[in-house]
């Protein structure tokens, strides 16, 4: 049975703009739950550039993506937002009473009055190598992650990549597969040195093959591969294979957002600039995922959008309630919410 959660606001995406939205919503007493496909908060700041310096956050001459994320998490802590990681929202349905029902791929239902889409460039999904027809084999014999190790037992496996995922799964799956070939474009690995050493030992013992090259083509039928063709420095090669695991990291895809009936413009969600509301009342979009005349994809723009969105969200959750605009500097009420007064 699905888990059911009822809250004021569901924020889709726990990147910097989504996180700051929890602050603005919290000041207005709105409770929020986050849903994010990654396994931690921060969005692009955490996944793409945790260590890269950012120079255009007001008040911070320099801050890294990870520091900004950590600071935002500390800033919103007084409001105890709840986080649901490693899942994706599949559908949003508007109910007769104007509220929303969201379903995730983790078999949960969220009931809420307001939805805030703060999904940046979309959801992070495995990068598909540019190989013709690869889609036909996906989830049948080509996988981008290992959900059940048993799916690989007794198989002829080809793993492609030179990072930790490729190396870790090479080491973990080697004992149960029939054969394993690791393919990487060069003999330099960006993985834990201990894993690289262990992999090289297995190669030395003849337990796995390592080839420097790239996938050129897949052979097979009905979703089942039988050969992986490689281009290597030593010429073209064909390796018999029944399973392929490419590990090329993550890339952002718009994903299910495209199916939610919202007005889109070039893979972004069209919003107004008063409330940052989408074409569906009650669904808002802030940060990189929205577009409006003059839009700049800056974190600071998303912060501003979050503040205005929160005012409009309050009017939906508590219709008719008079909201007095207050400053955290001077309002004892707000300071109590923040736990400082």
């Amino acid at each position, binding site marked *: 049975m699905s888990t059911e959660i009822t809250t004021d606001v569901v924020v889709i995406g726990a990147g910097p703009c989504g996180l700051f939205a929890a602050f603005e919503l919290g000041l207005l007493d709105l409770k929020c739950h986050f849903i994010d496909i990654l396994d931690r908060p921060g969005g692009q700041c955490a996944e793409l550039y945790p260590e890269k310096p950012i120079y255009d956050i007001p008040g911070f001459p320099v801050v890294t993506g990870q520091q900004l994320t950590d600071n935002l998490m500390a800033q919103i802590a007084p409001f105890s937002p709840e986080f649901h990681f490693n899942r994706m929202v599949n559908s949003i349905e508007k109910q007769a009473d104007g509220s929303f029902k969201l379903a995730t791929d983790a078999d949960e239902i969220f009931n809420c009055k307001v939805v805030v889409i703060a999904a940046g460039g979309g959801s992070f999904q495995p*990068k598909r190598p540019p190989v013709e027809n690869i889609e036909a084999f996906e989830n049948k014999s080509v996988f981008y992650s290992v959900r059940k190790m048993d799916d690989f037992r007794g198989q002829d496996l080809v793993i492609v990549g030179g990072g930790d995922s490729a190396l870790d799964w090479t080491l973990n799956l080697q004992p149960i597969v029939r054969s394993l070939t690791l393919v990487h*474009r060069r003999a330099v690995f960006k993985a834990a040195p201990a894993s690289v050493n262990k992999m090289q030992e297995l190669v030395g013992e003849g337990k796995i093959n390592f080839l420097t090259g790239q996938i050129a083509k897949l052979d097979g039928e009905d979703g089942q591969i039988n050969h992986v063709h490689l281009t290597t420095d030593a010429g073209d090669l064909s390796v018999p294979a029944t399973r392929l695991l490419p590990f*090329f990291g993550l*890339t952002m895809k718009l994903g299910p957002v495209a199916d939610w009936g919202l007005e889109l413009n070039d*893979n972004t969600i069209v919003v107004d600039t008063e409330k940052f509301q989408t074409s569906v009342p009650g669904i808002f979009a802030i940060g990189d995922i929205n577009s409006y005349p003059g839009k700049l*994809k800056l974190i600071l723009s998303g912060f501003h959008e979050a503040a205005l969105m929160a005012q409009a969200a309050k009017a939906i959750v508590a219709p008719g309630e008079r909201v007095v605009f207050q400053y955290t500097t001077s309002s004892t009420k707000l300071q109590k919410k923040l736990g400082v007064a």
Partner: protein
Amino acid sequence: MIIHVTDQAGENHALEGLEGWRVMEVIRDWGLNIKAECGGALSCATCHVYVDAEWMDVVGAPSDEEEDRLDSVGDVKANSRLSCQILMSDALDGLKVTLAASAAKD
């Protein structure tokens, strides 16, 4: 200054660029099919181009960090570069590059 870009469909485009712009920014600004999802932070590899043979010496080789990022695409060649790491200058007036399949938007 002008750069010549061949897109994934094989079409050629002569694009005007400005001194100090990254080649990625020029390509993106002209609306060609380039994802460039990290915006030039050398954190992805979705602005991948192949540099024309005659320009290889002028453009130079990728840095170690750029090589690491190139590990995340499956269509690397000897003339692969990330276009966010190539800065426009007089020396690059007339540069020819081809957009890689892995740089395409979805």
